[in-house]
């Protein structure tokens, strides 16, 4: 069987653990529902109410980011800014000490972690999916089992470990903790299992080494799974807060999220800055989501993580 379309790959996945495994959306062919006009109206009313419920805070945040601090919490409230203040965004970048550096830190760690995870998650995933080696099944079972251990159990020992390794307050702390993530190894494993073996067999005949097969033959085919892993890692790292709070002590090492939390205490509820900063903090992840929505959705449906 050829590996022409990724569609074929998607439907072939045989997942041991995951519940919904990257299915090509089943064609919805519901002949039973006879939708009458009234039902349509009620339905759309419900959709709109839910949309308002889930989306209004974001709309108001964006609008507020152009208001003065006083107007954000003015009483009576305003919907649109009485005067638009786009300079709020400039003020966030110039008035908050080290904010550009925090944005850089966020991007740096996010991209570094994405690169590391793309490589290591797929490498390990490939070994689990395809290669025979001693204790493979045991190790795979261990990986699944340890995924459910609550993270808080690890906090103290990991902190002491990284403290003694002199990695506290360095990028190293976060890279050590996140250079691979078992959830995405699992995602990659499941994907690799769906790829037909024919191509590898041919490469073995040609005398290609296992790393060559992985790197040159398998990875190019794994684009959908790599995108899901990359995008979800991006989301997780960009949105990270707790690890930064624990491991980073100097403001020069903060990320944008941890920096935002200081607005409250240090800048005494300057709502214009808080709102503009929040918009800046959500913007990159929003763009990634809009562009890579398909993979985002699949990844979450597969791993249950974000």
């Amino acid at each position, binding site marked *: 069987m050829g590996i022409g379309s990724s569609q074929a790959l998607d439907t072939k996945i045989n997942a041991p653990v995951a519940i919904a495994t990257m299915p090509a959306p089943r064609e919805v062919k519901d002949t039973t529902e006879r939708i009458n006009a009234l039902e349509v109206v009620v339905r759309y009313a419900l959709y709109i109410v839910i949309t308002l419920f889930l989306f209004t805070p974001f709309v*108001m945040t964006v609008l507020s980011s152009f208001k003065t601090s006083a107007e954000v919490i003015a009483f009576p409230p305003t919907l649109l800014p009485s005067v638009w203040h786009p300079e709020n965004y400039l003020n966030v970048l110039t008035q908050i000490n080290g904010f550009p550096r925090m944005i850089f830190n966020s991007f740096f760690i996010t991209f570094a972690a994405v690169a590391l995870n793309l490589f290591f998650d797929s490498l390990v995933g490939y070994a689990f999916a395809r290669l025979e080696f001693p204790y493979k099944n045991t190790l795979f079972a261990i990986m699944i089992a340890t995924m459910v251990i609550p993270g808080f159990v*690890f906090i103290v020992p990991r902190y002491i470990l990284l403290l003694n390794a002199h990695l506290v307050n360095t990028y190293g702390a976060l890279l050590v903790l996140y250079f691979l993530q078992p959830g995405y190894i699992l995602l990659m494993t499941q994907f690799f299992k769906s790829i037909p073996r024919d191509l590898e067999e041919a490469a073995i005949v040609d005398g290609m080494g296992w790393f060559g097969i992985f790197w040159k033959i398998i990875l190019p085919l794994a684009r959908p799974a790599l995108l899901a892993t990359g995008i979800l890692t991006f989301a997780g790292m960009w949105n990270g807060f707790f690890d930064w709070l624990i491991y980073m002590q100097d403001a020069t090492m903060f990320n944008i*999220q941890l920096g935002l939390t200081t607005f409250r205490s240090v800048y005494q509820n300057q709502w214009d800055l808080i709102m503009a900063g929040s918009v800046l903090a959500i913007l990159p992840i929003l763009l990634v989501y809009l562009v890579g929505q398909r993979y985002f959705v699949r990844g979450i449906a597969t791993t249950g993580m974000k």
Partner: protein
Amino acid sequence: MAVSVAPQAPAATAKGSRRSKRGGMAIAERRAGLLFVTPYLIYFLILQLGALVFAFWVSFHHYDLLALDNPFVGLRNYARLPANQDFLIAMRNTTEYAVVVVILQTVFALLLAVLLDSKIKGRNFFRSTWYTPSIASSVVISMIFLYVYHPTGLLNSILGLVGIHTTEAYLESTTWALPAIMFLNIWTTAPTFMLMFLAALQDIPKEIYEASAVDGASAVRKLFSITIPLLRPIIFLVVSLGIIGTFQVFDQMFIMTSGGPLKATLSVALLIYDNLFKDTGTVGVACAEAIVLGLVIFALTLISRRVIDTRIEY
């Protein structure tokens, strides 16, 4: 170990005969497999197994991050927890929080998914907008809700529009602070689980619904007698992920209320953080608390498995 160079790798045929045919190749494969899996092995041995063992070790000691000598105290750190007022308060708050949030977010997520699982126009638009609360970070969500819950913020503005005039400071009220954070969390987490339910719903064979339509089942009846039973495995997954997440709630309390007012929003995770970084000589206690928390989560996950029962028959 003698490593013979693989003579001529045989052309692959059936899966079963593959391994037996390749003597030397099998060794190369074992080596490659072990090499490729080494990064995870290191991660497991140090950051998981090692950390777990070390966590237990620390919990049996009077531990201080700066001290040279950390004396062994046996089970004392555990034994003192039931008499620790802060721990009891934190445990009660966290349990209350977890029960309410897990139940409501699961129901809400299922409702959202069922609504989206139809051929209605604009479905993708609704899915995208509904999911937005889940892509924002906990910090951004907390910042937005500081504004929402401000005495003259979004919530009271909206209430004012419908004639309820109040300047309640929700986060400074012992009555409202915890429910306010519960609400925020349901709002931000439900859309993630909505996606998981939606993927599972699309896997249910439509023939099942067609058969029930012949029997004249109503939409509500279909939901309870077909959809929900078939979704049991995913409901269990959502509930257990919910339990794991809610029992470790930290960010929102840390950012919005610092556990206040009067410890009304003190969570176990926040207490562990305080014991670790704010108090001195309580690192062992923090470890004991984290391990107890982990065991509680583990036990509740098992119980929820019994209750939800993941047997499934199409």
